[in-house]
């Protein structure tokens, strides 16, 4: 395994892969620093550029975006008190007060180095766990796959949003999208509504791009007061002075907290549908609970910065494990990666690591090297990244939408995909306004075909449906699905009892 990893590292160090990885990391940091631009949107923007590249080149670029994006958000969070994206919110709680106390360099670099160490701990999990998990999944038959996908969907439905019914409904709508078009067994057309394009089914990437890009952009547009300039404004960039050895010691001298919060990040990454924003906040909360001085949190304590940043970078490692071992995207970014792989005819899943060794170890290597590149870029360009936040959204949004159109069009050089993008842009925005979370919808769209294929395979092999319950792993997963729904119901009830006042839930894009 370690020879393969070393080979992967040497492979990715070749300029052919290093250039896209570095470009992706740079774009990721920039995207992370920009307000209102999530990692999903940045990776969607990068997607069309990867179509003409080799699979590993494209994936290296996307992994760069992913890692860079998780770290880019902390620049504005710590120095300006403006979280670039939801997964930097908890970083701001202590990062900004520390900056205001006259230690902006310490605050910033505690976050950057914590991201680095958290990311490397995530990499250890990624390299160590993907193979054994994939080997376990190789034993699965269609019953187990069906139950695993149902479990993933029920988890997402329960974990996102404030209502389990809305989460489940959103996932079911995602499945409905996949039943339109020809059936996967006999190829019979169904529910095409007389539209010729629909007979071939709805491709999931334009759906994903439309739903996430428009939901995010239009949610920002609706807060815009036309004629009032974007509030980014001018600001005085603080002077960043820091002793790196001292900052690194501050982090490594808290090994338990670093390990525990990175573990929290990895676990949240493994769970499908809840992303780094949850990891960031939960790790902060955990660090506060375990601290001897919880009262110092929120006043500029280093633990707050270290915990939140270590978690959101290790989270990436966790998300990559689920997609590589099971073919289940841990979040929207990995769903886009899955789409990019399928364009090249590669299906992630249990066979991926054994059949695509160069690619899978290349992914591990790219993930590790992206952290090194991120540190290098932060050394050189922090002041430049700070300037980025002054770019108004009125300039950014049209460019992003153009890249979304190119991404949809370039899938197979047809405008039909662009129409799907526009249609699902409207649907995605209406779903957000209707209170339906988007993550279950996307997972439903991504997994729908696989759920149907495995259900049909299972029934064709043995028509007795009770096998879904009596086969140990399948039965366990079905039981876990029911348990996750029951747990979510209990949690929502408890939450409702605690908070009498209603508040609109945050959509985790």
């Amino acid at each position, binding site marked *: 395994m370690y020879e393969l990893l070393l080979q992967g590292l040497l492979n990715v160090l070749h300029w052919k892969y290093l250039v896209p990885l570095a470009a992706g990391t740079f774009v990721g940091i920039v995207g992370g620093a920009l307000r209102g631009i999530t990692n999903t949107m940045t990776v969607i923007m990068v997607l069309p550029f990867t179509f003409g590249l080799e699979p590993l080149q494209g994936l290296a670029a996307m992994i760069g975006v992913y890692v860079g994006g998780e770290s880019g958000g902390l620049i504005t969070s710590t120095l300006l008190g403006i979280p670039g994206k939801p997964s930097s919110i908890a970083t701001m709680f202590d990062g900004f007060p520390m900056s205001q106390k006259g230690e902006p360099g310490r605050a910033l670099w505690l976050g950057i180095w914590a991201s680095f160490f958290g990311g490397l701990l995530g990499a250890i999990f990624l390299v160590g766990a993907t193979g054994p998990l994939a080997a376990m999944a190789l034993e699965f038959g269609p019953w187990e796959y069906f139950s695993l996908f149902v479990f993933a969907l029920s988890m997402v439905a329960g974990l996102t949003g404030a209502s389990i019914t809305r989460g489940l409904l959103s996932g079911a709508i995602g499945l409905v999208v996949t039943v339109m078009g020809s059936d996967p067994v006999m190829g019979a057309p169904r529910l095409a509504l007389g539209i010729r394009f629909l007979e071939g089914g709805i491709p999931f990437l334009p759906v994903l791009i439309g739903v996430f890009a428009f939901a995010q952009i239009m949610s920002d547009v609706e807060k815009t007061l036309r004629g009032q300039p974007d509030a980014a404004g001018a600001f005085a960039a603080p002077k960043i002075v820091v002793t790196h050895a001292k900052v690194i010691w501050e982090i490594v001298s808290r090994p338990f907290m670093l390990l525990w919060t990175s573990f929290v990040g990895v676990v949240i990454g493994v769970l499908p549908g809840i992303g780094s924003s949850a990891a960031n906040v939960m790790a902060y909360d955990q660090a506060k609970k375990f601290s001897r001085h919880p009262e110092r949190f929120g006043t500029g304590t280093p633990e707050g910065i270290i915990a939140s940043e270590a978690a959101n970078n290790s989270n990436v490692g966790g998300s990559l494990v689920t997609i590589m071992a099971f073919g289940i995207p841990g979040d929207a970014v990995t769903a886009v990666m899955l789409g990019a792989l399928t364009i090249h005819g590669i299906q992630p899943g249990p066979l991926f690591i054994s059949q695509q060794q160069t690619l899978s170890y290349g992914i591990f290597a790219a993930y590790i090297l992206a952290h090194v590149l991120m540190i290098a870029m932060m050394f050189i360009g922090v002041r430049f990244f700070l300037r980025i936040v002054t770019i108004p959204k009125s300039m950014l*949004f*049209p460019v992003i939408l153009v*890249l979304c159109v190119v991404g949809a069009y370039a899938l197979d050089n047809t405008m039909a995909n662009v129409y799907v993008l526009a249609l699902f842009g409207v649907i995605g925005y209406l779903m957000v306004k209707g209170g339906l979370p988007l993550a279950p919808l996307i997972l439903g769209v991504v997994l729908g075909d696989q759920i149907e294929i495995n259900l049909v395979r299972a029934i064709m092999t043995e028509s007795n449906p009770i096998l879904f319950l009596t086969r140990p792993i399948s039965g366990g997963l079905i039981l876990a699905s029911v348990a996750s729904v029951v747990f979510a119901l209990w949690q929502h009830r408890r939450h409702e009892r605690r908070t009498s006042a209603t508040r609109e839930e945050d959509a985790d894009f």
Partner: protein
Amino acid sequence: MSRDLTTGLVCLAASLLLFVLTLDLPGPSLLVPIGPGFYPRIVLGITALLSALLVVQALLAGRRAPQRSEKSGPVPNYALVLWSFAVFGIYVALVPLLGFRVATALFVLALQWLLEPPRGMKAWGIAVAIALITSLATFHLFQDYLSVLLPRGRWTDF
């Protein structure tokens, strides 16, 4: 009508309509013991059930707290959202007619104007430059380096 009630009713109507359409699909064959309508009916049945549940929950919640307002804070600028969607819709419709380059330049300029009208000659100059650079750079980058031929216009042949 509350948000959940509207969402539930729309989803219920759509899922029932699609469910009815699955009834026309062929049944099982000799080779495959389940027909192409088997799985869609399960999925649409579940969707209809969940939509109905959302409707019931919304009605019960409405009965419990009829006076409760949905949310507070600034009023969302829905007119701007509608206009932004309209501009995007026109853009998508114009791409095959005017070609990617012309349609994109017009779209980028129009959306910039819509979201934040440029003030003064300098701001207009920047807006026009962004529109032209986005359009031309994207077109040539994708055509020359990434083997993606973006559409030329039926009307303009450009």
